[in-house]
């Protein structure tokens, strides 16, 4: 028997509610003290098509999806077929009798099939409960969970509890009872097969309390913990759930959230709120961010603290709205005309989405500049069971930097305050408008220390421009170097940024397990960085492989600009799907020959794209093919 270590895939059409049942089941498991990682795969359509959600369950913490699946809950024909190659021998597919499978193929792959009259039963139970067929059929989810509990010998009460909670509140008890009934029925029907099924889910002795949160919720939480009281945004996948989450929490924390007429207004509202003294943010995806570029530069010029989240998806342009990618790094680093200080941070993992977003608000007020958070579709929707200790909300220390207190303002002589005073470190004490001693204007034109338009005098221009840009030197001292993972002086170093963090770590583990000594150098803080220190870190890498979700290896370009160091090879993926550790490990193995050859020779420069790019693209193609089959 395999205990508490399995992946379950729940697949069907959009609207069949796999996502909710997935999360529901995950909650039951988390309450049972198990660790869960759930990621979603869905299409840009509201009904039909094919979506699935994937639960990875373990009694150790899990941070990324795995490739091998132990159980598939198939709510339509495609679900039953699509994942055959991923199912481990002895694994199973749970499905309605209406769905027919290629039994020969199953046999040959040693996959079991558990069929039940789910639909018939759902309708039978739903009718008296006054559910129309559409609604009744949604109970397939509950039924399938019943079966899952049965064959994994997971206690029925634990899913019963969730069912009651999910439906009890929302829709009134008739529906709750119906769902309970079908779950019970399914459980009893399926228990007979438990003996035949290897994977078991056993609640922990004394389960610890954990939350289950996805990346976008964590970003919202980071903002709230940091005292962000205001978010204005315009809906755009995969960023929408940030404002939706904060809106859902707005009563609890007394937040103002605003859906604006467009993204231009979204960032402008936030800038207005920030200028008035409130910690404010906006969140969007690349296309919406494109519309924010002009105002971003204005915030840079008026030195207004601001946090902007870009949740990346594949482009260019509309691209693949529900998919994932890492194509916006160079864009956000250079967005808007001319130059101003900004900070770019790319969290990796749910806990990092929380902590680094919270940090972003302190940085924004400390340096009085925009801070950009780069996340992506995969991370936005992937949930993980998070220990209370991982997110110590109450303990976060809000640091408003050189923001003047009312007491300090009271000390000022009227007319003496200079919003843009020339200072050593380039940061000018900031007054929140409304105090009689600090009446001032800010302007997007070049300006005097008082914030008055001065778009002629060269000396003033130089002084103000250098004052702003000086802040970058101070940031460099504070911004964090990329983190190492894995054995020191390994033969291979995998370099990545942001959401690929745990997939790369898994790849490192797999490689070392396979006897390939590898480690990882991962960037969360990306801009600005201290070039000297970074050069030292990179010097520790013998053969540097860049792993990115884009075509031109953007981080590799940034690193070369910083340090001159070129990467030795690249693993680039741009099919809109997240990396998995196994993929990366395989790709590295494919390159091993070149690596070993290389390690004899002295370091050669890799091309920005060109040959290596191509070989890397081949790898990506291979992965993609797997994906297609998958």
């Amino acid at each position, binding site marked *: 028997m395999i205990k508490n270590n399995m992946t379950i895939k729940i697949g069907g059409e959009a609207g069949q509610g796999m996502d909710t049942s997935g999360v529901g089941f995950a909650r039951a498991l988390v309450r049972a003290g198990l660790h869960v990682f759930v990621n979603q795969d869905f299409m840009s359509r509201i009904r039909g098509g094919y979506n699935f959600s994937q639960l990875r369950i373990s009694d150790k913490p899990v941070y990324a999806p795995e490739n091998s699946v132990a159980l598939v809950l198939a709510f339509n024909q495609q679900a039953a077929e699509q994942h055959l190659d991923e199912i481990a021998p002895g694994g199973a597919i749970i499905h309605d009798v209406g769905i027919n499978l290629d039994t020969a193929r199953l046999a040959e792959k040693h996959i079991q099939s558990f069929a039940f009259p789910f639909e018939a039963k759902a309708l039978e139970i739903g009718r008296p409960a006054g559910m129309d067929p559409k609604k009744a059929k949604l109970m397939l989810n509950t039924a399938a969970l019943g079966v899952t509990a049965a064959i994994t010998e997971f206690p029925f009460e634990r899913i019963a509890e969730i069912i009651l909670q999910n439906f009890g509140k929302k829709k009134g008890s008739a529906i709750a009872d119906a769902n309970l009934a079908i779950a019970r029925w399914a459980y009893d029907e399926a228990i007979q097969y438990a003996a035949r099924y290897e994977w078991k889910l056993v609640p922990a002795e004394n389960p610890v309390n954990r939350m289950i949160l996805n990346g976008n919720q964590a970003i919202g939480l980071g903002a709230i913990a940091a005292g962000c009281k205001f978010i204005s945004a315009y809906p755009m996948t995969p960023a929408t759930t940030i404002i939706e989450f904060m809106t859902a929490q707005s009563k609890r924390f*007394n937040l103002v959230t605003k859906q604006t007429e467009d993204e231009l207004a979204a960032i402008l509202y936030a800038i*207005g709120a920030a200028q008035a003294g409130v910690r404010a943010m906006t969140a969007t995806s690349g296309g919406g961010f494109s519309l924010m570029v002009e105002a971003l530069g*204005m915030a840079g010029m008026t030195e207004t603290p601001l946090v902007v989240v870009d949740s990346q998806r594949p482009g260019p342009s509309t691209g693949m709205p529900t998919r994932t990618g890492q194509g916006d790094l160079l864009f956000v680093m250079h967005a808007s005309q001319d130059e101003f200080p900004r900070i770019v941070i790319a969290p990796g993992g749910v806990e990092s989405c929380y902590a680094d977003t919270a940090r972003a608000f302190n940085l924004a007020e400390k340096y009085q500049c925009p801070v950009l958070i780069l996340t992506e579709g995969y991370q936005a929707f992937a949930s993980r069971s998070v220990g209370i200790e991982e997110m110590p909300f109450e303990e976060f220390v809000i640091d408003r930097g050189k923001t003047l207190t009312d007491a300090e303002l009271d000390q000022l002589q009227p007319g003496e305050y200079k919003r843009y005073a020339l200072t050593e470190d380039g940061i000018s004490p900031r007054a929140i408008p409304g105090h009689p001693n600090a009446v001032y204007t800010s302007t997007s034109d070049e300006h005097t220390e008082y914030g008055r338009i001065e778009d002629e005098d060269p000396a003033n221009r130089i002084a103000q421009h250098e004052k702003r840009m000086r802040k970058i030197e101070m940031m460099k001292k504070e911004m964090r170097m990329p983190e190492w993972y894995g054995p020191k002086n390994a033969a291979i170093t995998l370099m990545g940024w942001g959401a690929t963090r745990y997939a790369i770590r898994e790849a490192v583990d797999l490689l070392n397990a396979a006897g390939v000594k590898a480690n990882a150098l991962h960037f969360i803080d990306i801009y600005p960085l201290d070039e000297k220190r970074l050069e030292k870190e990179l010097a520790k890498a013998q053969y540097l492989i860049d792993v990115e979700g884009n075509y031109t290896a953007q981080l590799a370009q940034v690193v070369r600009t910083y340090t001159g160091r070129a990467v030795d090879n690249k693993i680039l993926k741009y099919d809109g799907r997240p990396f998995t550790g196994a993929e990366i490990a395989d790709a590295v193995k494919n390159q091993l020959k070149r690596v070993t050859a290389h390690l004899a020779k002295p370091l050669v420069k890799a091309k920005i794209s060109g040959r290596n790019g191509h070989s890397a693209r081949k790898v990506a193609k291979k992965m993609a093919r797997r994906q297609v089959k998958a």
Partner: protein
Amino acid sequence: MIDTTVKTMPEFVLTPKTYEGEREITWCPGCGDFGIINAVKVALAQLKIPPHQAFLVSGIGCGSKLPDYLKANGYLGLHGRSLPIAQGVKLANHNLKVIATIGDGDGYGIGAGHFVHAMRRNSDITMIVEDNKVYALTKGQYSPTSTKGWISSTTPDGAVEIEFNPVVMAIAGGATFVARTFSGDPKHMAQIFAKAIEHKGFALVDVLQVCVIYNNVNTTEWYRPRVYKLDDDPTYNPRDYNAAMQKAHEWGDRIPIGVLYVDERPTYEDQVKAIAEIPLVKQPMSYPKATWDEFRAAFM
């Protein structure tokens, strides 16, 4: 909404001079904007709004330079983008009197989208448009309010578009205060600005502003004989939507100035629970453990 601070403190004696800026004004001699900025000062003094409780937002253009010449809080932002900034400021601190002072290109041209949606919200802000019917700062291209057929460097055969009628669009679009005034009538401007700022809700004041350089048609001489005051007509009721619409269309030999339309609707800010009591900027930024425990429970 409790508004503790807008009452002026005793020590303030507010006169138009109170709002005098320290900067050299770069407008052309004879520009209508001089009259407008003075009228703004008069209105602020009259309403006893001290400089630190006023917040002016503008865009880019000749008219948008106004806050730079005024002693009051201000944000001179981007061309066409003043209204969302103004609404953001108001949500963050509804004790501030937020006033946008912008050009016609700014407010009705590039900014038309924000204008349309701001009116629907009825945020408690004032939008003063220095409407010279031309793009002045960029040297005289036609603007949305230029008359059809207007000749300019980008329309040598005359502008093809029909004029944008701000007051018609405002009444149709849900503004709760719609007025027009004239840069040649300082008293009237001050009076209308004061009413607009006092109005609770979104107030538009379209100011017929003369540009002595790029608009030699709609001059003071041209306007003077045409404008007439709605106040002089006791029968005119600005709360009558249809009557207002009629008036709003009147243009040419006779041009009505004054308050065209008034409506009462709760302001946006009054409908946001989170700021029913204390302005957002004054609220605590962190939360007691109990609140967090509640939250955690909900996600376990």
